[in-house]
């Protein structure tokens, strides 16, 4: 039977004590796991600072004892719900578009796509349209009254986007699940239904 090592860690954690140490073979005999599994489990506990090795014997540390008494268990998985806003590490397409919008001062989406080498991509165009519309809703972007010429014969032209007040070099982040725009330059959040007061 294959067992997640963290569950093995849980089992090992439950049998160790502060005062009397146990060797690895002893743990193997007591818990009915292989030596390799027990070894990995001990490593997990050691990484948390809950066990220590003294000679060839494993002891529970004070921190480990406190953790066990408070009901902590060792399980696989993440550290719980995400906390804080994560800014993307690599340059995303929207970040590149934001940088180019700031460089040019005012721009249409086709011009942006041209500079960003995505001129033929409808997916990219739609991505930017959606993003800019959200930024417009919260006042970070605005559109000029006149449109730029272009498009099919009957087209009224392309919208020209402008930043009325430059918030900074970091692109605003559209958090669609929370319906807010987060500005990483100032740390402010703008609810999409209205502007921040």
């Amino acid at each position, binding site marked *: 039977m294959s067992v997640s090592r963290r569950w093995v860690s849980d089992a090992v954690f439950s049998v160790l004590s502060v005062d009397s140490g146990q060797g690895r073979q002893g743990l193997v005999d007591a818990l009915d796991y292989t030596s390799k599994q027990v070894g990995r489990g001990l490593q997990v506990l050691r990484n948390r600072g809950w066990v220590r090795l003294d000679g060839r014997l494993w002891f529970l540390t004070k921190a480990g004892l406190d953790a066990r008494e408070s009901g902590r268990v060792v399980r696989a998985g993440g550290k719980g719900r995400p906390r804080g806003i994560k800014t993307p590490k690599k340059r995303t397409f929207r970040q590149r578009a934001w940088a180019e919008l700031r460089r040019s001062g005012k721009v249409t989406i086709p011009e942006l796509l041209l500079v960003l*080498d995505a001129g033929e991509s409808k997916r990219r165009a739609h991505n930017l349209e959606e993003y800019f519309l959200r930024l417009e809703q919260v006042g970070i972007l605005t559109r000029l009254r006149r449109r730029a010429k272009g498009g099919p014969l009957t087209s009224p032209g392309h919208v020209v986007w402008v930043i009325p007040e430059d918030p900074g070099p970091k692109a605003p982040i559209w958090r669609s699940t929370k319906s807010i725009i987060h500005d990483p330059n100032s740390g402010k959040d703008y609810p999409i239904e209205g502007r921040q007061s």
Partner: protein
Amino acid sequence: MKNKLVNTQNVKLFLAGILELERRGAREANMLMVVGDAGYGKTITVRRWADMSDAIYLKGRPKLSPNQVMEDLIWELGEKPKHTIGRMEKQARRLLMASQQPIVLDEAHFYLTDKASPLEMIRAVTETSENAVILVSTEEIQTTIRHFPPLWSRVIPTVVRMNPASLEDVSLFCSDLCEVTVADDLVREIYHHTEGRYRVIKNAVAIVEQFARRNRLERVTTADMVGEVIAHDWRDRSPLKVRKAKSRAKPRAGSV
């Protein structure tokens, strides 16, 4: 019309200049000059490169001071500028060392005002980290910067000169951007009327495409478009029409 950048001679020249800058022998010579008149693709080429290399892009403006330059630079590097010029200089050095981003100075002639103190400030903060600095301006900057030997010595000998489009460039524009086939004689006609200015060439290509759509043509020749307005003179905005084949013996004044 397709929306893509055409790999013209000017683009190739620019990339060759960048390569020259990266391969330079003297480490302190970290500046490259890109010069050319308006309409030859200077700005779009540099902006495209700035996006690809994640460069810091600063634009010169009248009455620029070293203080303003430092504030702009630090703001672009993502921090709030400190209050004094000395502290801003240290702050900028630290940030540039960490990011190693190249810097593009558009309208670079404005950085040569007040005895070139704005550009001297840029030189001072990029000296240690050797960040590449691209100076974009008109031809006159070459004359002006020579008056400042400490700066002039830091510009690499290769100057990227953005030239008017050649016939090959116009042909490339037509084949890469136009949704219909443009015959060679019409390409020559476009070349003749546009005088190598990329904006005008692009407009001409758009006009040819619209003409083709209206008349349901897949291939357009000079004969199809005789008498049609193909471009407008960039000086006085007068319309320029496609000529008949036999009247093309004399070239227009000022054409290449």
